[in-house]
């Protein structure tokens, strides 16, 4: 069963945030699919670039769990083809920024023993915590 989505202020806030971060007016998207069909990496993605645009527009937070934004190579094929002159790769970048700022640590410090921690360089530890973010 597809989950029901509510149109609420959270969704709108999310859209506004992405619009602000990316500088792209996502509500302009016509959903023509040009970006997806031209994308050289679309086969590696779980959802297509045009779906990213749609999900952000309707405030569907599930978009944050998709892999697409991490696969996007910012090659700008979509950007030069979009009939509405939207920059989809900037939207991907905005989503990545949001995800990174959630600062999810995928490693638990309590899993590391004190001895191990002594031997590891500090900077290496920090980056390990953030490594699998997203």
């Amino acid at each position, binding site marked *: 069963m597809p989950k029901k989505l509510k149109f609420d202020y959270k969704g709108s806030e999310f859209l506004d945030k992405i619009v602000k971060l990316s500088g792209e007016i996502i509500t302009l998207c016509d959903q023509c*699919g040009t970006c997806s*069909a031209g994308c050289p990496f679309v086969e590696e993605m779980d959802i297509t670039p045009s779906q990213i645009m749609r999900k952000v527009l309707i405030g569907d937070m599930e978009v944050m769990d998709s892999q697409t934004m991490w696969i996007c190579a910012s090659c700008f094929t979509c950007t*030069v083809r979009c009939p509405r002159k939207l920059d989809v790769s900037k939207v991907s970048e905005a989503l990545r920024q949001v995800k990174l700022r959630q600062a999810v640590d995928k490693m638990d410090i309590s899993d590391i023993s004190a001895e191990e921690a002594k031997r590891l360089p500090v900077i290496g530890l920090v980056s390990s915590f953030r490594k699998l973010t997203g």
Partner: protein
Amino acid sequence: MEKIGVYLCQCGGNISNTIDLQKITDHLKKNNGDELIIKEFSHMCSGAGQKLITDDIKDQKLDRVVIASCSPHFHEKTFKAAMTKGGLNPYVMEIANFREHCSWAHKSQPEIATEKAKDILDASIAKARMDFPLEEKIMPLGDKVLVIGGGVAGIQVSLDLADAGQKVTLVEKLPTIGGKMAVLTKTFPTEDCSACIISPKMAEAQAHKNINLITNAEIENIQGHRLHFEAKIRNKARYIIENLDMDQCLICTKCVQECPVTTNNYWEQGVIDRKAIYIPAVLAIPFKYIIDPDTCLHFKDGSCNICEEVCPQNAIVFDQKDEVVDVAVDTIVVATGFDIFDATEKPVFGYGKFKNVVTALEMERIVDHISEKPAPPRKIGNRIAFVQCVGSRDEQVGREYCSRVCCMYSIKLASLLKQAKPEKDIYIFYTDIRAFGKGYEEYYKRAQKMGIKFIRGKPSHFEENQFSKKVTLTVEDTLSRKIIETDFDLVVLANGLGLSKSTDNIIDFLKLAKSDDGFLKEAHPKYKPVDTLVEGVFIAGAVQGPKDIPDTVTQASAAAARVLATLAQKEFKLDPILAFVNQEKCDGCRLCLDNCPKEAIIMNKNGKAEVNEALCLGCGSCIASCPTEALDLYSYTTAQLYNQIDAILNNKQENETRILIFADDSCTYRLADALGVRKMKYNTDTRIIRFPSSGRITPNLMLYAFKKGADAIMIGDCHKKSLRVPWTSQVALQSIKKTNEKLVEAGVEGDRIIFHEFGAGDLNIFINKVDEISESLKTMDKITSETKEKLCQRN
């Protein structure tokens, strides 16, 4: 001394309940003594009110009339008629806008409203003192019309006008009339044969006694203005003699059989070839041969004259010359139509590179010949894709607009193909299907029922297979979210529509305007859709924007009706509110020439500027550029405006603030009227002066206003898009810049001049703008009297 009659209208209480008219009378008497004849009446616009004016003109021998009543946009015409009836020139009358700009807008503050009314009336009287009689020049009108473009629009306009008895010259650049419609196979949604509908009309246009048909012709120049134009038309040589007793072409086809040159027939979109001597189509009108000098070997290197040899009638003349015809007309209808989008502009489609990517017009001809026996001229495979929005709704190629017809013609071509060859597998790739017309949605449904597959997605990638020549499309089906990559035997591009390139010359000659989409701009998008900003020039069909056939024909008939309405007046009055040059003051510096895009200012033989009254629109933009104040505008003379500014600020007390609003007549002044009608309150410090356009303002006028006590100035004009005279705001901004420099020089602080372009509905914006100024004035110091003295030389 002038004798001025001042009439105060109570407007059945609308004015007198707010404004104390007795106080106004006392004020006038105090300032002017018994010089004025002042009368108060309940309804000045009524018969009795008008009689008051006409009687006084006769009995009291009035020279000027001032009426304090509603907005001039309500009853100016009424009162002008009364003036004429009384025997005075209608241009020595002024209306003080008491109702809309005062009693209604400031209904809740009767005392302040009365004070404001005094200022308004004083200004009107000051202006009236310097009014002088103006004559409306009358120009005769004939019955001649030039129709440019022989497509369905041009033919319809010509026939309608010719039937009504007008003398029409119909000019077409190609050797045959009929335009794009004659090329189409069938029309949507009825699927009746396009050629069968248009060919009787084409024949009628040729045979009509009131139509002079000139084909294979080019317009070399159009001169003239308003309702008198002279066109130079080059009728290009066909190299064939017709209509002579001895050497007449009998269309025996011998020349065609012998001609060694084979080339693409543009009329057939390259689907069928033609010879260098040819008739473009079976339904061509006029049905005459023509030699194409670009491909004919005789014109290339003189190596061939076979057709001349074989012609039994000696009808071929290689040294025939172009004929140049001069036509004088009263009105012009531009119906030059559209060109389809050149798909090579966007290389991703592969058009021109891939063999099996064709345009929709080519497809029209392919489908037209599809059932030909033994075989159609162009073979197409079974898997066919239509790609929508090629050169429409695509900002990458600078075309934001929807071309309106592509969805329907693609559905039509697909349906016709499916009916003729049911084995074809047809896909239409679309973003949105726009089936807006009568019977269109039903037609779309029928196509779906036939099994034509509609896929929602725009193909992004086109690739040609080197060997099979099939075209691979990559597209996202945006509904199932699958990426589809598949081969097609034929890809049909649904090219969008753009203004035809041949229109560019016409635009130059007639100084027409384009709208943002690149098509010709109409005078008003709602109620003047076939007029242009140039008087006497009308537009019909796809030059104004993409259109299907029914809309084009409707618009063509509308244009014909507008031409008839114009010409039926038999004469035409020139509005006397025009610029004029004081010859003594003019020093021939030519600066004004650049400020008039209509090129209405010319240099006369004395080396001084002169206004061509037939071209001048009366916007006043030239005046700001004149360093000697030689240029001026009738009815809004510089002297009058100084007096008006003087009078409107004269009653100002030391502690009061004044925001002077120079309101252009067509937008800002009417906007203030609308505020009054809706009883919407706004700042009572405002004083509005009516202007022909914002271009009329000059730095000197603004500086004078500040000197006389204005604290801030707001200048209003129309939105550039809706402007009748689109350059005025530029001029105003320049004047403002100069004024600001002077203000800084004199040591006046703050941003005191505001310019805004108002639309008709911007009621709240107007109120807010005024409030903003008022707020910012509170933070500024008053302009001291010493500073004021520095501002302006004039006293």
